[in-house]
């Protein structure tokens, strides 16, 4: 292969040379080159190694159907860049992937010596013992994928949504016709093409369209309702006409590397063209052997002649165009057509234009190792000869690119005899195929077909697409009269006929899979990995199906097809993520006091429903446990303040508000007086605890319901479902107001003293504001609503104020609390305090299996209410299973021994079925030792018994005690 740059032709800018390096060689290309075309222009034939056997490889295609990737070391180090679609950059440095020291001298090529030991699925059979994972790193390391450079380039990515009336996939003749028609009808249009510019085959095949493509594109440019995306590939067609598009280096955003679109389209026109397929023959993977369309594309797009002495090997008419173009560019061309009589007088015409026709011939084998040097030919009369060449351009027919239509699952693959390939059946109206994507290849016909597709698309939108005159184009050589030839059988055993270059799959591999019982095409694919490589089988898949048919004696159309799935091309995860990283990865929630907490050194983390809350406020030299203990002691001995803002809050109003509460809570709320609250346990239909909370009666028919933080959304949905589905006749409105209110909860024996110091304009005496009481008023100028609830086992006042006053309220509390040594308290200290007090917590004791009786809350179950949600299920479950797990306190034998929360309790600590678990374990500040809560089978009847927690291989004895370690009579809470 002696490839060279021509003095003229192509879309490259010869006035802008670009120096670059590849595998240590200093080379140069031009602006407009891809990495592949620049290497071709420099006559670098061997550019990579095959995936499994490390055979020498060159470029086989000129677009996404090729599988040669490179790593870019500079600028922006990255790997697995597809060379045929990666624009060449000035002063860039590239290396071949998975080769050492380079593609030419690759040591991994030794794998070829053992190729007989490495058939399809070899690792399933050979590397079973002692363990596949022992070998896996070496095998994966040897496979032909690039290693991510260190440090790797971090592309700037954006993901975004888009909408349009008509999305046109492909800016070739059909796509341009469809887009122009749709746009002129007034529809909003997005035209997506994976090339640097429009034209598709009109450019790649050098078809003189008199400037129609560029004029059309220019007109589309001027239309406000049209968005043109170049260097963009539609990679997925999802439900409800949602299509995903990867756009590289968007023209409108110079600072962006990648943009991933999620586009909702009214109608879709798929004009994605077609992929040429090969005719696999022995050693047909040598550098210098490529698709005829690739040779033509390099010629017309980049001004690169891929070889001086070319053999064009074909079974259809389309390759004649390639043969004539190569000859016109100066190559000596021989067209080997397997058809004995490929078109009457064509031989004379071809000869007249410098192409020698060998009708009825066949290429049997390539000769040459690191590049093709000759081919072995069989003439029509059976004579064999060796024919020197430096380029073999192959055309085995064309596969319409209907992948996207297939992804919708609305279009099926249908065999087309004349084209000897599969085409797509029609969809159900939301998309249309046009042009080569549906088997129409002649350029003028493609334009007309695109126009019709555009008209049909806008018609469904109530618009009229104008008629557009297609130019007369000279395009005589397209895929007609295809004589199917799926492969050329090797003449000698051991000759390798590669059918899938990306996956290094040979015809022998397919035969092996069939012999081993993988007789479905889907199984053959999975066993051999055919079609699962970088190119996803774009060129070779139909050959695989044809070969399986040939080997099993089935007609090709009866073999079946594999399934097209997204992505159509490889897509960087970073592009899909876009800005979804760091703080934008997940929507953490913060109270209005987050800055205040952070300023005091709070360590923040999630404490339910994505709320970031202070875990603890460490002093210098303190760790988390020490800080939490200090804060808890402050609450037990003086006063603390914590941020209870995230608690769920729902304003419930209406004549039936009380009925709603009585329905969802196990207790009787009817007797709650205005200005008072009541603790309630909420169950789901299955009779298990869903949440616990407190509801305060603000007025006769107006309540404020507090849920736990983590269950707030669930409680809201539960209430709405009851009202909208089960009790639509009840007169109740539900208003979620969680974040309207910020909170400062004062807790501890000095809490009332502190509140008094804040000079409230309302009565805070025990008589006026008792436990479960509420008051409204002001602290200075700050409006507050105060609730007497406790979750710490101490007297507590929950001060709620509109969020705008949050910081001012806290500053005021801290200033007034200084004489009382007030301490901010985080969720870790809260956890210690609530375990000491024996209060349950959602996610700990409320674990989705417990009912109120299990947790010692049976006394709350109303004996007078006729019903409440979950009652029947709860009673039935209890009747059927009397041996329930019940809440108990647990004291480790070693008072300093902590037990992980969730540790199983098993009889004797044996590895047998568990009889409960440890739900919470803390170091108590009240008892100065480790204490725990747990759920234990028949727990309440086992007081004093020693049970055992299994912590990995250690058995921890625990004494069963009552689940309240502090303020058992609740005197401090009610003080």
């Amino acid at each position: 292969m002696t490839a060279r740059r021509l003095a003229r032709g192509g879309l490259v800018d010869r006035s802008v040379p670009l120096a670059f390096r590849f595998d240590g060689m200093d080379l140069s290309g031009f602006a407009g080159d891809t990495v592949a075309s620049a290497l071709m222009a420099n006559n670098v034939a061997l550019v990579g190694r095959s995936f499994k056997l490390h055979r020498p490889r060159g470029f086989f295609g000129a677009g996404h159907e090729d599988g040669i990737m490179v790593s870019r070391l500079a600028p922006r180090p990255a790997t697995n860049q597809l060379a045929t679609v990666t624009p060449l950059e000035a002063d860039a440095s590239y290396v071949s992937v998975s080769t050492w020291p380079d593609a030419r001298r690759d040591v991994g090529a030794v794998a070829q010596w053992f190729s007989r030991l490495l058939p399809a699925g070899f690792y399933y059979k050979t590397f079973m013992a002692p363990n596949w994972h022992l070998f896996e790193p070496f095998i994966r390391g040897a496979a032909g994928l690039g290693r991510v450079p260190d440090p790797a380039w971090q592309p700037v990515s954006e993901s975004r949504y888009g909408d349009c009336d008509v999305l046109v996939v492909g800016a070739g003749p059909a796509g341009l016709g469809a887009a122009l028609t749709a746009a002129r009808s007034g529809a909003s249009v997005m035209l997506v093409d994976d090339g640097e510019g429009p034209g598709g085959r009109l450019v790649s095949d050098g078809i003189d369209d008199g400037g129609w493509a560029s004029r059309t594109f220019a007109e589309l440019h001027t239309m406000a309702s049209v968005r043109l995306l170049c260097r963009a590939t539609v990679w997925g067609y999802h439900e409800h006409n949602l299509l995903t598009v990867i756009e590289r280096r968007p023209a409108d955003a110079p600072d962006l590397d990648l943009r991933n679109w999620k586009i909702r389209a009214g109608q879709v026109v798929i004009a994605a063209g077609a992929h040429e397929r090969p005719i696999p023959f022995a050693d047909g993977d040598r550098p210098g052997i490529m698709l005829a369309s690739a040779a033509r594309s390099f010629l017309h797009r980049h001004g690169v002649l891929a070889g001086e002495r070319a053999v064009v090997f074909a079974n259809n008419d389309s390759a004649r165009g390639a043969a004539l173009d190569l000859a016109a560019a100066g190559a000596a061309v021989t067209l080997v057509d397997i058809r004995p009589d490929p078109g009457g007088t064509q031989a004379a015409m071809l000869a007249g234009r410098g192409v020698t026709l060998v009708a009825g011939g066949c290429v049997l084998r390539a000769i040459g190792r690191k590049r093709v040097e000759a081919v072995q030919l069989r003439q029509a009369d059976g004579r064999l000869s060796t024919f020197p060449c430096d380029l073999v351009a192959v055309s085995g027919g064309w596969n319409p690119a209907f992948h996207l239509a297939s992804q919708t699952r609305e279009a099926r693959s249908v065999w087309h005899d004349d084209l000897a390939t599969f085409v797509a059946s029609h969809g159900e109206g939301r998309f249309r195929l046009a042009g080569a994507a549906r088997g129409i290849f002649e350029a003028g016909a493609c334009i007309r077909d695109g126009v019709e597709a555009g008209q049909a698309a806008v018609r469904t939108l109530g618009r009229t697409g104008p008629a557009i005159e297609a130019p007369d184009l000279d395009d005589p050589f397209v895929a007609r009269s295809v004589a199917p030839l799926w492969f050329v059988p090797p003449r000698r055993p051991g000759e390798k006929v590669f059918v899938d270059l990306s996956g290094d799959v040979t015809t022998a591999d397919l035969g092996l899979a069939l012999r081993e019982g993988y007789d479905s095409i889907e199984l053959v694919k999975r066993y051999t990995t055919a079609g699962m490589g970088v190119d996803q089988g774009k060129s070779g898949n139909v050959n695989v199906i044809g070969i399986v048919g040939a080997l099993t004696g089935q007609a090709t159309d009866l073999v079946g097809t594999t399934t097209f799935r997204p992505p159509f091309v490889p897509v960087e995860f970073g592009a899909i993520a876009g800005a979804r990283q760091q703080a934008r990865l997940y929507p953490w929630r913060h109270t209005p006091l987050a800055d205040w907490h952070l300023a005091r050194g709070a360590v923040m983390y999630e404490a339910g429903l994505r709320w970031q809350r202070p875990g603890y406020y460490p002093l210098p030299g303190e760790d988390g446990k020490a800080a939490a203990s200090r804060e808890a002691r402050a609450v037990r001995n003086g006063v603390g303040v914590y941020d209870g803002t995230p608690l769920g809050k729902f304003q419930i109003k209406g004549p039936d508000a009380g009925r709603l509460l009585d329905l969802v809570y196990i207790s009787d709320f009817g007797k709650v007086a205005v200005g008072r609250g009541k603790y309630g346990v909420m169950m789901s239909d299955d009779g298990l605890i869903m949440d616990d909370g407190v509801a305060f009666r603000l007025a006769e028919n107006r309540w404020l319901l507090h849920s736990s933080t983590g269950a707030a959304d669930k409680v809201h949905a539960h209430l709405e479902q009851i009202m909208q589905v089960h009790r639509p006749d009840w007169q109740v409105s539900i208003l979620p107001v969680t974040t309207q209110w910020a909170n400062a909860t004062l807790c501890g024996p000095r809490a009332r003293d502190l509140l008094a110091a804040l000079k409230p304009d309302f009565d805070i005496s025990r008589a006026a504001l008792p436990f479960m009481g509420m008051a409204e008023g002001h602290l200075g100028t700050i409006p507050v609503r105060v609730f007497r609830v406790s979750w710490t086992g101490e007297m507590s006042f929950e001060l709620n104020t509109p969020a705008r006053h949050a910081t001012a309220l806290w500053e005021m509390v801290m200033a007034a609390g200084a004489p009382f040594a007030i301490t901010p308290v985080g969720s870790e200290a809260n956890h210690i305090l609530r375990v000491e007090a024996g209060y349950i917590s959602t996610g700990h004791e409320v674990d989705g299996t417990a009912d109120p009786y299990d947790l010692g809350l049976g006394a709350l179950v109303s004996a007078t209410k006729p019903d409440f949600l979950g009652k029947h299920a709860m009673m039935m479950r209890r009747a059927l299973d009397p041996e329930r797990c019940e809440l108990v306190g647990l004291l480790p034998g070693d008072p300093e021994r902590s037990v992980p929360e969730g540790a199983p309790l098993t009889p004797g600590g044996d590895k047998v079925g568990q009889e409960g678990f440890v739900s919470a374990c803390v170091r108590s500040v009240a008892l100065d030792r480790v204490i725990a809560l747990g759920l234990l089978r028949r727990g309440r009847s086992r007081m004093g018994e020693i049970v055992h927690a299994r912590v990995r291989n250690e058995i921890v004895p625990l004494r069963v005690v009552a689940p309240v370690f502090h303020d058992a009579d609740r005197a401090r809470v009610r003080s």
Partner: protein
Amino acid sequence: MAALFEARGQAAALAHALAAAGLSWPQAHHRFEPDETGTGTVLLGPARLLVIAPAAQESALAEALGRAFDGEAMADFELVSDMYAVFSVSGAGALDVLRQGAPLDLSGQVFAPGSVAGTELWSVTAIILRHPGSGTGFTLFVDTSLAGYVADWLAVASGAPPVLKPGTMASPPPALTP
């Protein structure tokens, strides 16, 4: 800060209360057509209504709505100005910025000036309003607990550096695990 009130209840009761408070019932769902003072109402659903007004009118409106809704058994309202962070996104690139996070088609042809929708924005719920009149910009209402998250995203989406302060994390430190 804008003055915001949310009301829920039966449509007739809501309409009655609005009238009692001197406010007009919206002409259509998901439309904001403010009066000359900048005050208007938006129907976000069959039983959900938002009153949007300049901040200066908050007290007067709270009083008027309080009186009006006190007499309505079938509807309730609450001041929610504190519950929502309000962002204004304007300029030639406003639509491009929002479309990075909003699946909803916000183009002027579909989402005309004065349109309002409760929708998803970068994984969180947001109320998006296209400015009435000129319609050249948008107002976003998001739960105040998510204000930092949205502000950070808006900054990055519009090409600016991130703005969220460090100091929060996703999981407790290992030292806290018993």
